[in-house]
């Protein structure tokens, strides 16, 4: 199965650049257009005749149609989107921006792809489209589970965008949605940094809840593989058209253990252990929220972060395996190690500067 040309939105981002790498590995003759809001190559890709960069803003239909009409790609991989930083994850201050980029941006990109006559559209959704409603625990869930329209601003935006994509899959264009879990890997700015920051804040000894709750963590390269597989499917058997897939390493681990493994990599082992019952922590989170509301600052602790820390969130990867033939190539232990080494390198660089 050969892919002729691909356009990757957000192609210089954390996941986007991994997808570009995977495409170049699996389809060396495929022409790739990396679209980004800056339009510059700062990811260190060797530019050649098969790789070009273009500037476009997904919230501007004109800029999109400019790029699409020029390169007319066979496949569109739409990864561009915003993930609110942890401090905004449980708030609603960024709601409009998130909706504009993640939902309207997807609508614009879909329209541009249809107008340019693209054959396949792979959308990078998120498992948060289903699991960010923290009132429920999500153990071993699968694609039969309903979307959550009232969750976090990010989860809501991903649920809406996902629906747009799936409903547009039809005769003209084949579309599918991948829902990756929390991602680790080279260039991760979301997962490892806040875990690492707990060492300096002396927060590592406190365990919220029983510490047994499992999470899916996924190595970024595996998710990139899944995107390539999805594109291949939409161009060949098309069994993935109109479908959504949970994508993860399929090795759920306790969130506490991920943190412990990261801390250990940075030479830190919590000196003691204090278990805080979930109810008490929730109350403490509430107090912290009151305090931040009065003082106008942001804190790690909030009711949302407490619920996150105690929640069970892992999915069953059977559908992706069956239809896409997806299996994690890099194990989670290896993935965590790669992430830690990469972050340690960046920290060292930062210290030098």
């Amino acid at each position: 199965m050969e892919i002729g040309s691909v356009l990757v939105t957000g192609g210089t981002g954390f996941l986007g650049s991994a997808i570009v790498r995977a495409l170049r590995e699996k389809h060396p003759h495929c022409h790739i257009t990396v679209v980004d809001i800056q339009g510059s190559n700062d990811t260190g890709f060797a530019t050649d005749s098969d790789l070009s960069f273009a500037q476009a803003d997904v919230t501007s239909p004109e800029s999109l149609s400019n790029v699409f009409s020029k390169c007319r790609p066979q496949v569109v991989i739409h990864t561009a989107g915003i993930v609110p930083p942890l401090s905004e994850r449980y708030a609603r201050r960024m709601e409009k921006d998130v909706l504009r980029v993640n939902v309207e941006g997807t609508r614009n990109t879909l329209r541009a792809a249809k107008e340019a006559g693209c054959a396949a559209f792979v959308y990078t959704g998120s498992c948060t489209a289903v699991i960010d409603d923290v009132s429920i625990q999500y153990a071993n869930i699968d694609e039969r589970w309903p979307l959550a329209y009232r969750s976090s601003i990010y989860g809501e935006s991903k649920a809406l965008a996902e629906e747009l994509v799936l409903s547009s899959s039809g005769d003209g264009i084949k579309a599918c949605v991948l829902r990756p879990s929390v991602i680790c890997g080279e260039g991760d700015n979301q997962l490892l940094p806040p875990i690492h920051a707990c060492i300096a804040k002396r927060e590592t000894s406190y365990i919220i809840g029983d510490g047994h709750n499992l999470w899916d963590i996924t190595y970024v390269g595996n998710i990139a593989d899944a995107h390539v597989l999805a594109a291949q499917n939409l161009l060949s058997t098309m069994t993935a058209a109109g479908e959504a897939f949970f994508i993860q390493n399929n090795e759920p681990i306790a969130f506490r253990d991920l943190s412990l493994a990261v801390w250990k990599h940075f030479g830190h082992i919590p000196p003691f252990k204090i278990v805080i019952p979930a109810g008490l922590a929730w109350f403490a989170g509430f107090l912290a929220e009151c305090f931040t509301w009065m003082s106008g600052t942001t804190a790690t602790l909030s009711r949302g972060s407490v619920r996150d820390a105690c929640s069970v969130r892992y999915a069953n990867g059977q559908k992706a395996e069956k239809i896409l033939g997806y299996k994690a190539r890099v194990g989670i232990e290896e993935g965590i190690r790669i992430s830690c080494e990469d972050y340690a390198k960046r920290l060292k660089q930062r210290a030098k500067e």
Partner: protein
Amino acid sequence: MVKVTDILYYAINPQELRSIIQWKVWHQPVHEREEDKESVSSRICYDFLDKTSRSFSAVIQELHPELLLPICLFYLILRGLDTIEDDTSIPAETKNPLLRDFHDRLEEDGWCFTGNRPEEKDRELLVQFKHVVTEFKKIKPAYRDIIKDTTDKMGNGMADYINNAEFNEVGVDKIEDYELYCHYVAGLVGEGLTRLFVESGYGNPALLQKSHLHESMGRFLQKTNIIRDIKEDFDDKRKFWPREIWSKHVDKYEDLLKPEYRDAALNCSSEMVLNALNHADECLFYLAGLKEQSVFNFCAIPQSMAIATLALCFRNPKIFERNIKITRGQACQIMVASTQNLRIVCEVFRDHVRLIHKKNVPQDPSFLKISIACGKIEQFIESIFPSQRPEDVIRSKPGEPKTLKALEKEAQDKEARHDMLMMMMAMGTMLLVVSGLMFGLAWLLGARFDLAFADAKKGMQDIMASNWRPAPGSSRAAKPAKQFDHDEI
């Protein structure tokens, strides 16, 4: 004999005492032996079963009548084979053919073996082996073939190990060899039993196709014993922990048992537990294929005991000092739980896996791998007994999806509310100004607001005094009121 320490232990752990009572008083065997209908030689066989096996005898004797005798004989035959293998007083050249041809002796009328040294504890079984032969010839040919075949494979496997000089000197080398050893001494039993279950119709035939499942059943038990018995085996000069694992932690096998290498030995034991733990989900999967309660109990009890033993041994330095065991109370608790259904056995597994997870420490090189193994077992249990189904999920806050349009509408609504508030405030202010002006005008025109205010205050006090607090303390206020009343009259 009841020990004082036992009394103290159960005083602190009454739930375990309760389990013992529960098991002793309330446990109803699924099937009971019909002793009056049994032949003399079969009764002798059951007596040997009691003598040779502490843990298996009871569960075997509760088996379905169809499998009761075959499995009892299967056990005794393997025990006989083991007794020859274990006896170091028998020279290799005698032992070798004995082991390799043992399966042929099973149908030789009156066969017995008297060559064991006197201190061999199950010597008597081989001396009186003719009773086993007599009964063996009576069972169904299909069962006989299965038992003979397993005995053949196992006897040859054992003989191979006797000839293996390296094994006898340095112990098990590679993990691969460790797996093979466990296959011979336990995996084969798993296979033989599974064939018996399927033959009798009490096991799902798929169990035979998925050979890794019954292989896991045997290996899980064997590996757990090997971990628990490290000290005992070492004292008997047997080294079952593979060098490929221990050499990562210590230089010499005997260092594992020295107190100064305790941390390294513990890390080594974690890796051994991890290796065993990887069989747990397949064991549960296997149990799902059993169709008869007594067969289920027979298989589930040893597995549950094994996971509990594994949890007890995990990062427990005592395994290097002595042979540790789960308490009698825990054992009864597990037996009660393991003689019901798969869901409850899964709970036993999950509880003990969580115990292991809780004892897992980041200092351990296998930390993340153990964490992943625990997660895998939890996910497997969740996959066969889901705690929630998607159709049961009713979103707590159902509602319209929040689109940018909806957000704009919300903003408009908010603005409208804001306007309304402003209007009300303006009206309030106007009211205040107008009434201020009117009062001002009245004052200018000579109205005595001070008198009016004093009057109002007094009236207020009166009302308070009479209605609100008619207690003695307020009588001062009440009296003038009365006087006033008189004056009026």
